């Protein structure tokens, strides 16, 4: 067959680079997909994305190992010491229950699958007023803050403009979905403190200059008690600092109030409203009457059947209040216009089925080609080219960390399908009358292919924005695929055919 041409070399090099980008890995262990916030392992510091190598000295190589070992350790229900060794660090904790995490086998490649395959949640949020680009950016920032406060890290939030100019905020949470996701994103987060019917201060920088958080001296759970009915109650307390203006308003309103019967507090309470619902009320100490006080202690409580539940409830409520006070309210209502929570349940079955279907399809196509042209070498070259297109698309996707979702997979199928079509054109041109030189024939084949390429790319461009960009995966993989096809694989295939045909 002689020496390989430049085009074939290019294909081989690109193929190598793609494989490098996909980087098949054979690392053992399990990857942490999600950690229940506020659970004991969460407190110990374990986070999403870490790879667990062993637990209490027993090596974990896959998901079933993990289930077996953890099941064995907690069979007795007693409190035990747990040493979780991850790739980089070791966590130690005492606990009586299995860690509240979900794990998965370490991914074998760098290819990232989208929510439809991996599981997770996706929400599309729209405001009830038209937002400017700046307002949308602010909204995204505020929402990011909220998620941070709640310890959710694997969250992707961004602003989106669709084909009709509608603006959305897209929130994607990988892995397990927090149960209060809806509440977290769609609430306006309006905070208002009132005395009687008069507003004293609102959430946000305007009125509240600082909120104490993550500092045990001015924020935390102050104590837990059991009430008569046996319900556990935990109290929290944190300090906020009002701006001068808000503090003066507070003084102005309290000046006119009388004392209550005990004489220790004022007759009216400071009532805290979250989204127009009264969340809590605080007694105001009598010595604050008419005072310009910039420092206010906010208190509240959480309840639960067990002390632990009450503790978490209190901590949650505190977090929520703190966030709302920091970020302030949004001057508009938010609506969840789309909410998908996808179970990771069928993901692996799905991947296998797609591989199975794709495999059979490619094989059958190769057989048809072989039967039609009766040329083994050329048919194998066609098969090889079709597969390399697949590898290149996956390589590019892995390289730029594109999440392969269903639209992307449909795009890959379409590309490999049209790819085979065009290789047939090339193969056929080579077959045709020998009056014209093979070079001329290949030029013609590439002309047809180039034209088809332009029409397809042109027709896919609008899809990038249509429907809030949820289907751009299709446009993306198709454009990558056919571009690679036109620039790399098909010229190489044409050269292969030239070599084979002589």
């Amino acid at each position, binding site marked *: 067959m002689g020496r390989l041409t430049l085009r074939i070399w290019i294909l081989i090099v690109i193929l190598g680079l793609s494989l490098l980008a996909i980087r098949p890995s054979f690392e053992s262990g399990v990857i942490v997909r999600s950690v229940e916030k506020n659970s004991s392992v969460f407190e110990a510091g374990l986070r999403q994305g870490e790879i667990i190598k062993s637990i209490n000295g027993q090596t974990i190589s896959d998901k079933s190992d993990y289930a077996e070992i953890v099941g064995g350790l907690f069979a007795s229900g007693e409190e035990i010491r747990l040493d979780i060794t991850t790739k980089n660090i070791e966590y130690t904790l005492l606990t009586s229950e299995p860690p509240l995490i979900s794990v998965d086998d370490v991914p074998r490649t760098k290819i990232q699958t989208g929510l439809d395959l991996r599981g997770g949640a996706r929400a599309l949020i729209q405001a009830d007023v038209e937002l400017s680009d700046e307002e949308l950016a602010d909204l995204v920032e505020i929402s990011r803050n909220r998620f941070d406060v709640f310890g959710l890290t694997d969250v992707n939030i961004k602003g989106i403009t669709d084909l009709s100019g509608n603006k959305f905020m897209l929130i994607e949470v990988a892995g397990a979905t927090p149960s209060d996701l809806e509440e977290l994103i769609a609430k306006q987060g309006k905070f208002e403190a009132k005395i009687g019917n008069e507003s004293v201060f609102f959430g946000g920088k305007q009125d509240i200059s600082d909120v104490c958080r993550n500092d045990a001296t001015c924020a935390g759970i102050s104590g837990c008690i059991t009430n008569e009915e046996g319900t556990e109650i935990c109290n929290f307390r944190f300090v906020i600092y009002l701006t001068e203006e808000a503090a003066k308003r507070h003084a102005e309103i309290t000046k006119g109030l009388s004392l209550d019967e005990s004489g220790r507090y004022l007759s009216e309470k400071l009532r805290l409203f979250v989204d127009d619902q009264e969340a809590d009320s605080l007694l105001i100490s009598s010595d604050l009457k008419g005072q310009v006080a910039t420092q206010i202690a906010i208190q509240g409580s959480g309840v639960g059947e067990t002390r632990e539940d009450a503790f978490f409830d209190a901590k949650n409520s505190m977090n929520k209040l703190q966030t709302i006070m920091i970020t302030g309210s949004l001057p508009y209502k938010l609506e969840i216009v789309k909410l998908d929570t996808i179970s990771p*349940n069928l993901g692996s079955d799905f991947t296998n089925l797609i591989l199975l279907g794709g495999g059979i399809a490619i094989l059958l196509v190769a057989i048809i080609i072989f039967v039609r042209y009766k040329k083994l070498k050329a048919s194998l070259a066609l098969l090889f080219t079709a597969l390399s297109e697949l590898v290149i698309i996956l390589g590019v996707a892995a390289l730029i960390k594109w999440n392969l979702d269903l639209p992307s997979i449909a795009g890959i199928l379409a590309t490999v399908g049209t790819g085979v079509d065009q290789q047939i054109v090339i193969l056929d041109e080579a077959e045709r009358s020998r009056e014209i030189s093979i070079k001329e024939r290949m030029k013609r084949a590439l002309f047809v292919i180039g034209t088809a390429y332009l029409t397809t790319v042109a*027709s896919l461009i609008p*899809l990038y924005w249509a429907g809030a960009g949820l289907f751009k995966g299709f446009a993306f993989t198709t454009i990558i695929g056919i571009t690679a096809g036109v620039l790399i694989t098909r010229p190489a295939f044409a050269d292969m055919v030239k070599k084979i045909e002589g």
Partner: protein
Amino acid sequence: MTNWYDKTYKFLLIIPAIILVVSLIYLAGFYNQNGDIIRKDVSLTGGTTISVFDENVDIEELERVVGNEIPDLTVREISDFRTGRQKGFFVETVESAERIKEVLEDYLGYELNQDNSSVEFTGATLSSGFYQQLRGSIIAAFLLMAWVVFLIFSESPTIKAATTMLTFLGIRLALPEIKIITSLAGIMMILGLAYGLIRKGGLRESRWFKIIAAISLLLFFFYPAYWLLLPTIVVLLAFYTIYSIPSLAVILSAFADITMTVAVVNMLGIDLSIAGIIAFLMLIGYSVDTDILLTSRLIKRKEGDVNKKMFEALKTGTTMTITSIVAIAISLLVIYNFSGILRQIFTILLIGLGFDLINTWCSNAGILKLYIEKKRRAREWED
């Protein structure tokens, strides 16, 4: 063999023409009855899809009981192709996620969470927005496809420039709100204008170009109203008809593919999802492939007998389409009871490619043959 085609091509042309006319009449009736040319599923009307992974539930029973409470409910099994065993089911309804979840939980007797189910909810305003945008995208895609085909197969540079301007005016009208598209379309308008002014055409063509350029520039910048889309398309079609019958044949074939497929999809009672509309977009790409092959072999190549070239193109083209059909049929079979999205995409492509065989090799080929014969006779007359 080749003589056989000389005798029959006109007759072969009638078959797709009849199917197209029947499809159009059917779609007109359908539109009258339903107010749209397709049936839409919850991803385009708004509503909820819940998939529940329960291997033991009796789906017929569930459909009967839950269907009583939620009248518009559709239930389908999810099963694995390899084992054929039930893996679960999914339901679709226009109701909100909370409502249907509640009813299902009542029936099933357990709580639905992320471990045992997936929930997809789309609001009604959002989905109608999706629909409009996807429709706009399809129109834009079709315009672009037609434009590229015309650039390649037509002769007059000034008319190419005129159709460029009209095409991008149409795209701006079909997708009005995206700044990037509007600016790109604007740039293409200017390029079209520049090209038309530089290249000298015939007297008649130049006059056409000036009129079109002036009107489309005015409309583009000062009055881009949506209702102008249809007149723009009509004018474009007129240009294609007058200046390049081969291009018109390709465009007509793609149009017929889509129209016939939509008609069959409606007859089968399929509710189109977003994925289904994307499948139509894919169909545009797939269908013009073979048409371009045929046309370039017949028009761009001078050597050889028309029928012989046609048959060679036919051999290549059918191999192409048949491999696609086989690949898609296999994928459809494997995924049939597993993913509603891919099932719909593959079903539409399968139907569309089937029609593409007819439309490319009967109608497009026939029109080309007529065109070439007419040109040949005209040449003989001159001689």
